């Protein structure tokens, strides 16, 4: 399953569906964000059918970024049934994301 690019409406719809969601707040002028892109692809593959993996461009969706208090990117928020349960800020190895997701899925 590919990584989804959310606008505000799509984000709301996905969050309303429930389940576990991992959202990467990013921007194209941010080098570390680009570095995280292959990690998101990998996670989308690893958790296919169990986690919705998506991205939000903070330039295109500033209100969404503000609502989630995004003050530094990359900023990855994990939601369960629409509620934030974990957050990983900055570039991190794949393992940190899988550990966080496994905790939420358990």
């Amino acid at each position: 399953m590919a990584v989804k690019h959310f606008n505000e409406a799509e984000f709301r719809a996905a969050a309303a569906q429930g389940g576990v969601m991992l959202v990467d707040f990013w921007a194209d002028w941010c080098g570390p964000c680009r570095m995280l892109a292959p990690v998101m692809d990998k996670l989308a593959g690893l958790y296919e059918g169990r986690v919705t993996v998506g991205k939000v461009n903070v330039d295109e969706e500033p209100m969404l970024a503000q609502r989630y208090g995004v003050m530094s990117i990359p900023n990855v928020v994990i939601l369960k049934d629409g509620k934030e349960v974990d957050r990983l800020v900055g570039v991190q190895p794949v393992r940190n994301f899988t550990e966080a997701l496994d905790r939420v899925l358990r």
Partner: protein
Amino acid sequence: MYDVIVIGGGPAGLSAAVQLRQRGRTVLVVSNPAPSNPLWRSERVDNYLGLPGLTGEQLLERFQKHAEDRGVVFQTGKALSAMELDGWMLTVGAEVVQARALVLAAGVARGAKYPGEQELLGRGVSYCATCDGMLYRNKSVVVVGRSADAPQEANYLAQIGCQVTYVSPQAPQGLREGIPWVKAHRLAVRGERSVEALEADGAALPCEGVFILRESVAPTDLIPGLETEEGFVKVNRRMETSVAGVFAAGDCTGRPLQIAKAVGEGLMAADSADAYLK
């Protein structure tokens, strides 16, 4: 994709780079501009074998030319973050570079973290103006200038619309007119859930963001899981760190902070990186 990225353009890094070229490897050296190197300011070096009486600047220029002549590629900038994924990815400013192995040779990281810095990292504390600046447009930010290029980063933040205050112990060079400068030594970041102020010598400067700009990102912040010992990167005789594919050399591995020791370690790190890539 390079075979090896060397972080740091001092004696250790350049020695590693030359030796890697000698072994037929492609090498990128990522470093700050040479005048930021502490050796640059050394008026006379008399204990480097065969080349007595040169200034630090002259020595560094010779080392650099040697590396350039051997085909080492250079990129000026700060290594901000690194990640392992089919080799190593490294961000230098807004760019991403890749290699199969890394050599850390960025010297000693000076200055401990400020109170509140770690706790509020990513919640108002940032190390990269070009990365996070846009998120603070029309907001007040404080730049803590601890590197030569910090005034430029502060100017950039002002230019994109941040209300910038510059804090440093010495008068900054090249800070745009209109950006207030506060002279302060003792700093602390304050805030509950996110940054609310920077405390500078006891006086609170209210702000939403604090950009702390040092000469280099500490190796342990760059490479998650990197082991240290008494503040230095832990290595074995082969200059291997605790992380596979990451080697270290020079001042960052410990005393004595001397050119000859750095050059020797650079060579050993290069040979180990070469062996790792086979």
